């Protein structure tokens, strides 16, 4: 129906945006896996470039969503909330790109004793982003409030898990025999990776408010 046409465009673009964010995180995860196995080589650099392309695509889609929304699709209060949700979710792709850039440009080598925990942290981050996207789609769709609450609670739990891993890794870094500069660099990387779930948590908190506001 003509009533819903413009909103269907927004829905399709939001879908595209979430997919781009998930793909960006998948590429990031692949890049880190490769880095841990092979160090910084051409393949890693290609993966960094692919992540950058995906992040740019997410940015483009975000701009398109803003444009369609400003052309008066949906009610103004929904427009504002969707834009904020998109803005918060977009931080995830930005963060992935920024970590890879840092690793590539600063030639950071992740020591053996961090490999397991880094892999685990990224695995949790992927699950966290999946839960966030499911919650976002649920809030925009017609998911039962209880289900949204469960997803938000899961995101919170993932974030806590990552925090624990982060502290464990930072402790291990500073216990090691590495140079202080190297320790600080690694700590920065660990915090940056942990930032992915922090962004998810912020977005989930907002989603919860958005969902409550939509309840009649």
């Amino acid at each position, binding site marked *: 129906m003509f*009533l819903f046409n413009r909103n269907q465009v927004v829905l399709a673009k939001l879908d595209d945006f979430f997919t781009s964010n998930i793909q960006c995180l998948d590429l990031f995860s692949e890049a880190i896996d490769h880095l841990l196995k092979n160090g910084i080589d051409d393949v890693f650099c290609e993966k960094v470039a692919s992540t950058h392309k995906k992040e740019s695509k997410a940015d483009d889609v975000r701009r398109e969503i803003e444009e369609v929304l400003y052309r*008066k699709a949906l*009610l103004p*209060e929904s427009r504002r909330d*969707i834009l904020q949700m998109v803005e918060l979710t977009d931080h995830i792709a930005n963060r992935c790109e920024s970590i890879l850039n840092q690793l590539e440009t600063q030639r950071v080598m992740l020591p053996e004793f961090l490999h397991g925990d880094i892999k685990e942290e990224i695995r949790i981050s992927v699950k966290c982003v999946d839960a966030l996207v499911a919650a976002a789609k649920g809030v*925009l769709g017609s998911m039962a409030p209880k289900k949204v609450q469960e997803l938000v609670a899961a995101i919170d739990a993932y974030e806590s898990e990552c925090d624990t891993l982060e502290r464990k890794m930072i402790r291990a870094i500073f216990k090691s025999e590495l140079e202080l500069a190297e320790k600080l660099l690694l700590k920065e990387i660990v915090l940056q990776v942990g930032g992915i779930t922090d962004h998810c948590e912020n977005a989930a908190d907002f989603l919860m408010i958005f969902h409550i*506001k939509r309840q009649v």
Partner: protein
Amino acid sequence: MLPYLGAVFLGWSLGANDSANTFGTAVGTRIVSYRNATLLIALFVTIGAYMQGSGGIETLGKLTPQTDHTAVICLFAAAITVAAMTLLKLPVSTSQAAIGSIVGVGLMQKSLDLSRLTKVIVCWIGTPLGAIVICFIIYHVLRIVIRIWQPSIFVYDPVMRWALIVCGCYSAYALGANNVANVSAVLISAEILTPIDGRLFGGLAIALGALTFSRGVMTTVGKGIIKLDVFSSLCCVLSLAITVHIYAVAGVPVSTSQGIIGAVLGIGFVKGLQTVNGRMLVRVLCGWLATPFIAAAIAALLMFLFLN
């Protein structure tokens, strides 16, 4: 010429003040532009006045006998009251001003139909109370419907947008049907206009006010009610339309401002009365109580000057 001038002024101020109650929320939430809203109001007010305005006209026309002179006095007394109260920034009901002035003239003529006046006063009290009850019921019923339906945001938003526009049109229709009597009842009673011409003339006078001077009040009402959220606003506008339409059928002109404040109170009863501004409510109440007395006093004074 004077009766027409008085009627146009009264209708114009009614349209300028009261059209905000029908589309203020939709304009405030930017669901519809001010220009389109006023065009819709003008159209539906005129249709409402023409189609269902006769009930109120009959009631007001029979409150007291009218001549050319008393019609002019009634219209100017009401118009002066509305203008003065608006200038003093006090809430005013055009219906109360119009009926107050007819009562003032009737008292001076010693020919007031008390049974009709009693019916009118009962309906005035019933307007906000009716709106409270209707809004309370509508809110709960629609809430159940939406909870069962569970639409996505991409369906809910356009449905709400169009529902608010449709209810705004219905509300404008009810405004025209109910309030046209304030403008043209005395003209028809004094046989200056035929009933059909009177209804059309009154409707167009109200439409003129909506088209030319409603932006200020509409912005204020829109911003005041927007805080309620779109769903609550829809319930308010629909309750207002139903309440005012019921009184149009019953043949008693009532205040749409009283109706909308009653509806907002209805939402307050659902969501908690802390949302209601008590001081503002007292101020509104004082304005409503004062309006018919001031209009009656001005009309009586003008009548006294005319008779002497």
